[in-house]
């Protein structure tokens, strides 16, 4: 698939002026709250009509203000999963799921319905009312409802933002299955590095209504531009790897990323499955000599690439370790004590339990 978006729109004093293209199966619009991500996805959906804009999906012009083309929302066949589930309160779960299915021409077979219901694990909820569901269940039904309308493109606006950590962990695996099992391209809006790292292939960093950077997830999320757009506490590096082996006696999985072997809490993915690991800079320790008698399971040898400017008394150190770039956040005091400078060889230490993303 290829998606081309171009939009200029004024909302009061705020201006959106963004253009991007993507050919990934999951494209993340990433940025802080208030950066204009939601407005941008609403423009794609057709809920917001931009002053100037152009949207092309797979060569099909959906909207082009210069040529006065504007496909109304209901003819775009773009599924939309909102921040809040927005289930119809007067319909049962089954009725909600059937809603879009009916408008899409009722062409979907019963097996398709069964497959999606099974994938999202909502089979036991079909006869319930939305008001009796938990937050996580509602959001899963909302995903199913959007999918059953057989969309050409699935838009998701921070679908996990309104949920607590436990609910997020409950839904994320379903979203991964969705990405891996359906062929529907997804545009995913989020301000969470962990979510984007886990789901996205392409990342578009948005700030102040403008595109700050765009490209491959791993490359973009380790860039200073992206680090700037993310929550300071969450900043870190993204490692691409494959599942090398499982250590079921200790509930661990070993992931190979470049030349590094990373031990992480057990993942339920087959051997050879590619995974992304987000290592937050604040979870990385540095040592000049190889530490002995330490509980942390991951110790990587590497060299310092550079150091960020001082921010609130701490530094982000970029390291190269076995073909990966890792970020470590240390205090000014540690920096002086270890005499860190570009080119110095160093050991990075990462606790396995800090890599728990599920």
């Amino acid at each position: 698939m290829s998606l081309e978006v171009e939009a200029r729109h004024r909302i009061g004093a705020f201006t959106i002026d963004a253009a991007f293209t993507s050919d990934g199966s999951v494209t993340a619009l990433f940025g802080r709250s208030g950066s204009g991500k939601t407005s941008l996805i609403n423009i794609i959906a057709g809920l917001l009509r931009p002053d100037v804009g152009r949207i092309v999906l797979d060569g099909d012009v959906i909207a082009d203000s210069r040529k006065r083309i504007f496909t109304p929302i209901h003819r775009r066949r773009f599924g939309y999963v909102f921040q809040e589930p927005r289930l119809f309160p007067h319909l049962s779960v089954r009725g909600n799921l059937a809603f879009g299915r009916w408008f899409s021409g009722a062409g979907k077979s019963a097996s398709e319905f069964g497959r999606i219901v099974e994938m999202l694990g909502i089979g036991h909820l079909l006869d319930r009312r939305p008001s009796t569901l938990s937050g996580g269940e509602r959001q899963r039904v909302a995903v199913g409802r959007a999918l059953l309308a057989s969309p050409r493109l699935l838009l998701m606006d921070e679908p996990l933002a309104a949920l607590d950590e436990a609910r997020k962990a409950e839904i994320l695996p379903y979203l991964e299955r969705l990405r891996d099992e359906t062929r529907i391209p997804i545009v995913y809006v989020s301000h969470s590095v962990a979510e984007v790292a886990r789901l996205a292939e392409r990342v578009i960093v948005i700030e102040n209504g403008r595109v700050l950077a765009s490209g491959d997830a791993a490359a973009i999320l380790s860039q200073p531009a992206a680090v700037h757009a993310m929550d300071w506490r969450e900043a870190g590096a993204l490692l691409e790897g494959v599942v090398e082996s499982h250590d079921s006696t200790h509930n661990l999985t070993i992931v190979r990323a470049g030349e590094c072997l990373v031990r992480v809490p057990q993942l339920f993915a087959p051997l050879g499955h590619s995974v992304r690991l987000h290592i937050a800079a604040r979870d990385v320790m540095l040592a000049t000599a190889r530490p002995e008698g330490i509980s942390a399971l991951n110790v990587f040898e590497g060299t310092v690439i550079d150091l960020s400017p001082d921010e609130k008394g701490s530094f982000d150190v970029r390291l190269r370790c076995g073909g990966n770039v890792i970020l470590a956040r240390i205090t000014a005091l540690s920096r002086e004590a270890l005499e860190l400078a570009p080119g110095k060889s160093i050991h990075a230490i990462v606790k396995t339990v800090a890599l728990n993303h599920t």
Partner: protein
Amino acid sequence: MDWWITLSDAEWTAVQLSLRVATVAMLCSLPPALLAAMVLARGRFWGKSVLNGLVHMPLVLPPVVTGFVLLLLFGRRGPIGAFLAENFGIVFSFRWTGAALACAVMGFPLMVRSIRLSIEAVDRKLEDAAATLGAGPAWVFMTVTLPLILPGIVAGMILSFAKAMGEFGATITFVSNIPGETQTLSVAIYAFTQVPGGDAGAMRLAVISVIISLAALMLSEIFAAVAAKRSVAA
């Protein structure tokens, strides 16, 4: 329960006429009330406050004035009345249809108010969601908006019905007091109180009027409870 059996034919006629007039008034004012409520709740246009004032006029005017205006407009010589009589054969003056028209006009603001409030309470995000699922504007209204405002519609209908059952001033001014044609329950009670020895008849009809009103009220409560249960926000 002797009084029940002794209800005279004329009294029965008044009860039946009132029920018929109130039902017709309620049903016929529903489509325009729904439209007016929708326009007032969602529309943004010049003169909206004028329309709002016009809709609420019967609520604030003395009913006798409303009846008089109806007489001027819809009477046999009135501009609208003459037009309808000539082209469609619809006559309002001194007919039960005129009583229904008077009741409909008097109940209209109540119905519009009730429906408008429920439309304003609808979460428009749900309508957006329906549109992203492929529903065009008309379908969004039919499948999402209408079911969600049903409690307001039912409440408005009951209010309009109750108003019609009790309507007196506009009715007697517009279509007078003709037994069997325009003598509704309220008008009949009034007529009874104007003749010596009419107290018993007035009392019988008053009791019936209380029963009908209470039944309508309870029915609306039941509907509202059912509807509220159906549409708890998710």
